[in-house]
């Protein structure tokens, strides 16, 4: 009988969300810092 595939999709979703949050936060931080620097 074939072994069942582990049910751990929640971990995968958590990791994908965390990575997206980190990358988007950094992109936004770069944008805001640049805008603040360019402000007269």
């Amino acid at each position, binding site marked *: 009988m074939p072994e069942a595939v*582990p049910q751990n999709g929640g971990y995968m979703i958590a*990791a994908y969300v*965390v*990575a997206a949050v*980190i990358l988007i936060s950094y992109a936004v931080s770069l944008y805001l810092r640049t805008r603040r620097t*360019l402000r007269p």
Partner: protein
Amino acid sequence: MRMLRVGRWITALALLLLAGVYVRALAFTPVERLQGLAQKIFYLHVPAAIWAESAMVFVGLASVFYLFMKDPRLDRFASASAEVGTVFAAIVLTTGPIWGKPIWGTWWSWDARLTFTLFLFLLYVGYLLLRGAVADPATRARYAAVLGICGMCLVPFVHFSVYMFRTLHPMPIVLKPSAPSLPGSMLATWLFSFAVFTLLYVGFVTQRYALSYLREQLEAAAGDAGMGHA
């Protein structure tokens, strides 16, 4: 300003393509039989790890050249690469434990690969703190260059720790002397993800470099204005 615009466009394109990586990894890549869906964390964790290590190598190389040539562009690049490397190291250190918990049964283990990766992250943080703590630009660049070279020396220990020590962390699956041990569809998804992380690195570093340049220009302009008043 042109560099800033180019950096923004590259970053925007990379973030758009990252959405494509998510779709491909989640919907069009087979599920690994033994690890289940958690194995798909691999498509983010490994490219982020490669760029966290590579960014520090670039910091170190730029630092070596800076110490000889004293070119501020090299210091600016090292600073930008270090900040972006910190971001990628943060992804590695968060996605790694999330992957480890269902597979190893624990969030963290003080084994060589994990500990060296934590050292790398702390070295990045120390590098950025050092840059923030020294006011004189020439002294800051010199101190940061020394720390950057130390960081570069740590990278081989991070990468080869799985060969040098007995670790819980698996051996490299893609970056190794023999052919990658992955089925074609998984390898294609990984290569796509790696290309997108490369684009993210380039976009972020370009923007961060342009931001440093802008700040230096403003500081110089403010200094000139101050001299004029005096």
